[in-house]
């Protein structure tokens, strides 16, 4: 089953945010995804960022910079997003395993060029940014307040798209192999 994408955006203004910052290693002892929920981004230190804050709780999309999700192979990183209903990340680039883990779970790891990521970050400050993602047309619509609206085109590989449509790699592989 395909997941739902889009909603309020959480902006993480730093590159190289690693998996330990997304979900600290000490929580890897959990054996269910649900149990990870409260610990999302717990060790991430960016000025003005509060992992327990409202913005994190409301977020359905993450917007960030380069090499997001580097470090460990732990799928706990996409899971902690999944159980917090964050099904899409938009970044300049990703670490390979993290990106694959997102698509394997039927979620989106969208890449946009630096200028467009900048354009998204420029919308911060005008109230909550609401992001709509249309997989079929490859279009992202970002709205801040009533006036401001920006659109972006994105591409994902046909394989990644097939994974998202199937609901993940287990479903895809199970039908095919």
């Amino acid at each position, binding site marked *: 089953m395909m997941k739902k994408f889009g909603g309020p955006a959480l902006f993480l203004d730093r590159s190289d945010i690693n998996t*330990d910052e997304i979900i600290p290693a000490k929580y890897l002892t959990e054996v269910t*995804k649900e149990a990870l929920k409260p610990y999302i981004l717990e060790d991430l230190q960016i000025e003005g960022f509060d992992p327990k804050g409202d913005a994190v709780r409301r977020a359905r999309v993450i917007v960030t910079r380069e090499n997001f999700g580097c470090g460990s192979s732990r799928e706990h990183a996409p899971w902690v997003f999944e159980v917090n209903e964050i099904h899409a990340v938009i970044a300049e680039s990703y670490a390979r*395993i993290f990106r*694959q883990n997102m698509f394997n779970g039927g979620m989106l790891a969208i890449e946009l060029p630096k200028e467009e990521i900048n354009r998204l970050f420029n919308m911060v400050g005008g109230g909550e940014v609401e992001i709509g993602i249309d997989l079929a047309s490859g279009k992202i619509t970002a709205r801040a307040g009533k006036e401001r609206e920006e659109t972006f085109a994105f591409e994902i590989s046909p394989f990644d798209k097939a994974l998202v449509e199937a609901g993940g790699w*287990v479903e895809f592989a199970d039908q095919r192999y």
Partner: protein
Amino acid sequence: MGKTIAEKIFDSHLRDEPFPGTRVVDLDRVLCHEITTPIAIADLVWREKDRVFDRTKIKAVIDHVTPSKDSKTATQAKILRDWAKRHDLTDFFDIGRNGVCHALFPEKGFIRPGFTVIMGDSHTCTHGAFGAFAAGVGTTDLEVGILKGVCAFREPKTIRIDINGVLPAGTYAKDVILYVISRLGVNGATDRVIEFRGPVVDAMSMESRMTLCNMAIEAGGTSGICLPDTTTVDYLWPFIREEYENREEAIADFGKWHSDDDAEYERVLTIDVSDLTPQVTYDYKPDCVKPVNEMVGTPVDQVYIGTCTNGRIEDLRIAATILRGKKIADSVRGIVSPATPKIYNDALAEGIIQVFMEAGFCVTNPTCGACLGMSNGVLAEGEVCASTSNRNFPGRMGRGGMVHLMSPATAAASAIVGKIADPRTFTE
């Protein structure tokens, strides 16, 4: 056009190409440990697909937290243990026989040139030292690997790194790879295979090649890889002697996994290590690397020698050479974790364990231990560790702690001084 070793391995294992550029390959090994596998098992059970594609090709170990430290880690171990038993896996390693996965599995002869290997662990790239394509994956990839014996990858593009010159005294594979990472950057090899070549690699032991490949992921690499040669065959000989008449035959056979001379590389980086000095990381990213002289004098609270990067017998020997007859500083907590029972045993037989103990080190059982701050050796806020491991991320060894990555020689020297120290002052 010729092919690289990674391309040859992909070609020979190709199961499917569902879309251009996506390669689904058959797997020779699916390796499992108790941190990332239990959720895959739980999901398979939930889907009513609790099966394994081949019980002889899946290998499992409890290594990250062992002995279990609390009910939660005991549960993780139990899930893996019960599953291994339920499916009658031919190889499962529990207390008494367990060790750090990337040291244990090669030692058991499980990895061969030309193999495809996945594991739910980012440092799976270590196994590329044998001329295998070995990649860390997430739990879903692991789950599909367990169930179907396949994994999907993009077309492997390769960065070739030619390592020339002669390694100076006091520098080791760890210094080389730290230097390489500083040159590539933490995502300089993302989605790429790193092929390590050149006379310095040719002269390296399998242990050193594993150290090199182990940290390919710290530059974002999918797999590190070395071409199989005489050294590879000598290491594997006890496991392959039935398959070949003699070593020469094995060497010739493994030659099919050599990259062609006209293979296409995305990038070739040539470095000369003749003037290399010991390297140390200084911040929270593995590409923040400085020569040791710029770090000398930094006080450390703990020194950790072990892990899948540098917990092998060669590493313990190097550290022991420096520690022999010396005491570590009063202000330092020294911890050494031999990576496998065999390494522990060899170190005992060679008197190395005694050297560590007399110097004031605590010797733990084989385990990942302090490396990831999940069980023993956790740092307190503000504390500093000189470590032979591979990651220095914030919080890696405990919240608010700082980890400086370095070779076993530099770590041993730092333990004696109580501050980051240049190992060459002890060896010359």
